[in-house]
């Protein structure tokens, strides 16, 4: 059971993220929702990396013990980097949107002309 807790957390995070994206009207909250989904996926990748009785894959210092394969770590890192880029892009677009429309409400933006 204790090993399943991370997976439960993953599903919860993704679901909360989807809830925020679908239900919230504030653009910043939508962005937060996407970040939550991303955190969930990253947590999932990191959880997959752990194998029982293994240590962190640092070249020196593992001794004779088993090292876990660091590929998921690399994948997570890449996905975090991409996430930062996407986040920055979304926030800067939101700044522009706010300048044009004076509101962050998704429904009101849809109604306004130019």
């Amino acid at each position: 059971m204790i090993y399943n807790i991370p997976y439960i957390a993953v599903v919860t995070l993704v679901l909360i993220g989807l809830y925020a994206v679908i239900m919230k009207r504030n653009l910043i909250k939508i962005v937060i929702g996407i970040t939550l989904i991303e955190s969930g996926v990253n947590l999932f990748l990191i959880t997959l990396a752990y194998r029982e009785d293994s240590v962190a894959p640092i070249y020196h210092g593992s001794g004779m013990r088993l090292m876990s394969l660091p590929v998921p770590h690399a994948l997570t890192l890449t996905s975090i980097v991409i996430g930062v880029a996407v986040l920055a892009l979304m926030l800067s677009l939101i700044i522009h949107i706010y300048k044009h429309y004076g509101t962050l409400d998704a429904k009101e933006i849809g109604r306004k002309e130019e």
Partner: protein
Amino acid sequence: MMGMSKIVKTMVSVALPLTLIYGLYIIAHGHLTPGGGFQGGAVVASGLAMLVVSYGSVWTMDRIKEKHLSSLESLGAFGFIGLAFLGLIFGSWFFNNFLLGNEYLFGMIGEGASNINTAGVIPLMNFAVGLKVIAGLFAIVLVMAYATSKKGGDL
């Protein structure tokens, strides 16, 4: 943002060098310990973001120009991809670790517990990525803070 009180500014002046050194350490030791270009770059950039917060984006923008940062960022990216191309030229394979095996520069692998002079082009690529991340993240924070401030409102 017009900057914060004197206490904050003083504390930032004390903490900033330490943060920068810590970030640069993580970049330099990326091939030996957990960390690397992105992580260290993020630490350095967060230190610089501290500067933006405490001194105000207008003050910072006057001293560090955004276009210089984007040139630096391009330089970092160019360094990364250029090293990959050097691998193609010297190591006959794209992204090849062509420095591995030479005696002088980053040639060895696994010599000594924490010898920086190892692992071929990986530390060099870490430096390039670090440069790119520092410049990129700092530029993002700076431009966003400036665009939402009063003076930069019409950016």
